[in-house]
């Protein structure tokens, strides 16, 4: 054997050593795999610690190791750590192989003997494989300094501003006619009760006027190609039917438009807008959008009132959707959330009982710029409620709907209680399962609402009904609930019920994730690279997730994530180039018979047929390293670095213990 292999078995504290006899694994590797070239096998408490790494580095230098196997956690966690350690000691980083005996053994199996035996097999597989590993060099590609931010809510705005302020260009794409997101719909923000618009709109204006930000509203990303540093993104800019160059945002078209449409996006169905509209007065950009579905001209062929009155001739009924192509180096997804559809909890009566409101409806009711000018009234538009019930955890922490806690609903329910109390003097009941007021100044707010006299009933509400049983219930909504503190069932008559609905992943999150090459969790939120240590990056390099797209969160956390992702992007931009994994396929021209089987297999068009030489050739810049062509080549002419036939076959044999020293040898 020419290779000198070091095997390092990690205890991971008790994470591995609690189930696997790590000392035995190391001893076994030294004895049984010696003929394969294992010259040293050690176990250590924490291989990933600096002492553990130094151990490996020292052995590489002193024993002249040519290959290293680390039996520890998943390569997705620490492969890089040990590769860097090898590099520091002068060994090519791709000559290090990780054997996952934590995620694949100690954490999923319980029998110590079986787990130890399996660990040996996994180590044996890695030893056989590492012999076949070839030294590789990372591929460096330049990074495009432009960034794409998808979603113009507060998280996306924050991301865009941070990068733009650092001097780099940002394309901010928003599906709706204006940026601002859900935050623009709110009246007050907890726990400080700042006016939401007052803190948000300056940021919106800044993003809209920033010289480094190209704002693309009423636009959607339709295709993403390329990889970190070099994404090519196609954006569909939907026809606005308003010429943005000419429009001054004077608003005359909206005044003159004869068609009223229920606004179920911005006003949550409580108010009207025109067929040509800006969603709200402070919209950024402030030029309107024509709603083709509802415009009388598009329906009947006549009207054009807006065109007649427009002082700058900005209305253009012939505008078409445009496809724009932009090149960016990094992408931040800030696509936000959908509100849980409260109709699904049919026993709470939303959609059937008029005076049951969703949280977003209440936000609009209480907003001074909303359809009722901030007057909290019943669905009839005039009666002020004398008693209000606020139900928490609607659609959240409920096996029938979503298991997770939506984080913001408790504080939102408390905020509603305060606003109702302040503006109407009504008696307010909050029906909660558990009161979750974590984070700075949140619990103090709860105490404040308690002191204001809001009544709290701990228990899950069974039903909201208008079927009165007693005279005091007539004409009211009755909240039927358990009271777990009193140990009783209660019926509480109120005039108005507000459902503190939870947050859900966007209805199209899965398709969006697929387009950008990232995955969703079981609940449907985008999956971060590491839940604790890398919460804004994803498994796909160059794609970041911020705000509620990653999971339910409040405004401060969304802003923090927006800024965090920008820091990551700026770090990438300032490095000017990015190192790509050198996992690529190559054709051995001597062996290629020119059969062209591989040509049609590559979805990235990386394989070209050179007719003159009668061979196929792979463009390394386009190859993504999936290896499908390698598996398909009947002549064995294509080889894939990092995952060669030799490596995989050796690993199969190793896992099946075909590499053990023959008895008596």
């Amino acid at each position, binding site marked *: 054997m020419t290779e000198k292999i070091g095997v390092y078995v990690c205890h991971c504290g008790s994470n591995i050593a609690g189930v696997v006899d790590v000392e035995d694994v190391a001893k076994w590797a030294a004895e049984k795999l010696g003929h394969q070239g294992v010259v040293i096998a050690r176990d250590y408490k924490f291989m990933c610690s600096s002492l553990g790494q130094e151990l490996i580095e020292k052995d590489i230098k002193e024993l002249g190791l040519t290959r290293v196997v680390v039996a520890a956690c*998943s*390569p*997705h966690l620490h492969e890089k750590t040990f590769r860097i350690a090898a590099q520091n000691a002068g060994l090519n980083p791709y000559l290090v192989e990780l054997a*996952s005996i*934590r*995620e*694949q*053994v100690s*954490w*999923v*199996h*319980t*029998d110590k003997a*079986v*787990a130890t035996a*399996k660990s040996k*097999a*996994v180590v044996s*597989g890695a030893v056989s494989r590492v012999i076949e590993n070839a030294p590789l060099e990372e591929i460096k590609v330049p990074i495009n300094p432009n960034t794409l931010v998808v979603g113009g809510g507060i998280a996306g705005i924050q991301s865009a501003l941070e990068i733009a302020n650092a001097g780099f260009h940002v394309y901010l794409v928003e599906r709706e006619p204006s940026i601002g997101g859900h935050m623009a719909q709110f009246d007050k923000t907890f726990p400080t009760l700042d006016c939401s618009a007052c803190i948000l709109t300056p940021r919106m204006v800044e993003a809209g006027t920033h010289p480094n930000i190209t704002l693309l509203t009423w636009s959607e990303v339709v295709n993403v190609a390329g990889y970190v540093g070099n994404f090519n993104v196609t954006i569909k800019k939907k026809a606005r039917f308003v010429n943005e160059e000419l429009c001054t945002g004077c608003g005359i078209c909206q005044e003159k438009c004869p068609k009223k449409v229920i606004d179920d996006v911005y006003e949550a169905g409580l108010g009207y807008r025109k067929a040509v509209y800006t969603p709200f007065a402070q919209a950024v950009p402030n030029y309107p959008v024509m709603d083709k579905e509802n415009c009388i001209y598009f329906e009947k062929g006549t009207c054009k009132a807006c065109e007649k009155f427009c002082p700058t001739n900005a209305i253009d009924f012939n505008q078409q959707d445009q496809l724009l192509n932009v090149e960016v180096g990094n992408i931040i997804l800030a696509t936000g959330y959908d509100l849980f559809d409260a109709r699904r909890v049919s026993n709470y009566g939303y959609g059937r009982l008029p005076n049951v409101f969703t949280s977003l409806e209440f936000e609009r009711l209480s907003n001074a710029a909303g359809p009722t000018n901030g007057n909290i009234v019943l669905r009839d538009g005039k009666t002020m409620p004398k008693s209000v019930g606020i139900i928490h955890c609607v659609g959240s922490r409920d096996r029938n709907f979503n298991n997770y806690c939506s984080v913001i609903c408790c504080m939102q329910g408390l905020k509603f209680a305060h606003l109702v109390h302040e503006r109407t003097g009504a008696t307010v009941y909050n029906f909660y399962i558990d009161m979750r007021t974590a984070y700075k100044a949140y619990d103090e707010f709860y105490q404040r609402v308690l002191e204001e006299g809001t009544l709290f009933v701990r228990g899950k509400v069974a039903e909201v009904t208008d079927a009165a049983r007693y005279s005091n219930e007539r004409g009211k909504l009755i909240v039927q609930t358990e009271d777990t503190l009193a140990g009783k069932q209660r019926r509480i008559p109120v005039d108005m019920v507000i459902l503190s609905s939870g947050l859900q992943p966007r209805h199209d999150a899965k398709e969006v994730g*697929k387009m950008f*090459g990232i*995955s*969703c*969790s*079981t609940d449907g939120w985008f*999956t971060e690279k590491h839940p604790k240590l890398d919460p804004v990056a994803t*498994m796909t390099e160059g794609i970041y997730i911020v705000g509620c797209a990653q999971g339910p969160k409040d405004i401060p956390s969304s802003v923090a994530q927006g800024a965090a992702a920008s820091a990551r992007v700026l770090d990438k931009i300032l490095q000017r180039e990015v190192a790509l994994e050198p*996992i690529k396929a190559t054709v051995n021209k001597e062996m290629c018979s020119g059969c062209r089987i591989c040509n049609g*297999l590559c*979805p*990235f068009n990386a394989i070209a047929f050179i007719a003159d030489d009668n061979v196929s050739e792979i463009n390394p810049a386009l190859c*993504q*390293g*999936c*290896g*499908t062509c*390698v*598996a*398909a080549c009947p002549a*064995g002419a294509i080889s*894939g670095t*990092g*995952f060669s*036939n030799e490596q*995989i*076959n050796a*690993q*199969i*044999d190793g*896992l*099946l*213990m*075909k590499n053990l020293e023959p008895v008596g040898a």
Partner: protein
Amino acid sequence: MTDQFEPTIIGFTCNWCSYRAADLAGTARMKYAPNVRLIRLMCSGRLDPTFVLRALSGGADGVMITGCHPGECHYIEQNYKALRRFLLLKRVLTGLGIEPERVKLVWASAAEGAKFAAETTAFVEEIRKLGPLCWGKDEDGRMKDDEDIGNSSIKIHPSSFEKEVPA
């Protein structure tokens, strides 16, 4: 239960979905049958069917191929190629006199740690019912030396087989 047959299973996983599902099963401390030993590929499309034959001829009683759900491939559509090869491979296995059920295809996304664990355990049970493959093993499950195989009731000689199929 000492005489219970414990099959050896080789599992091929995709770097982007099923390998992460296995990681997730670990992080969530889900328990599954320890008979499976995993190999990471960048994509199920990398799976050369000869890998499966090599595993079976080398002592594995079953092979589990895992990849991203249809339409969710990290490389756009390469899992469909894995599916095609899987279907062809099953026919080849039948022709070789091997129960095609010894090879199973499982789609598991990165979020499906529970599915990965459940499918693994279920597959081990299926193979347990089928019994040992004995394609290169004696009845005690030990690897046979090549010379022994001539006396075996199994006609296909794995070493000659390896020569036919370019590895």
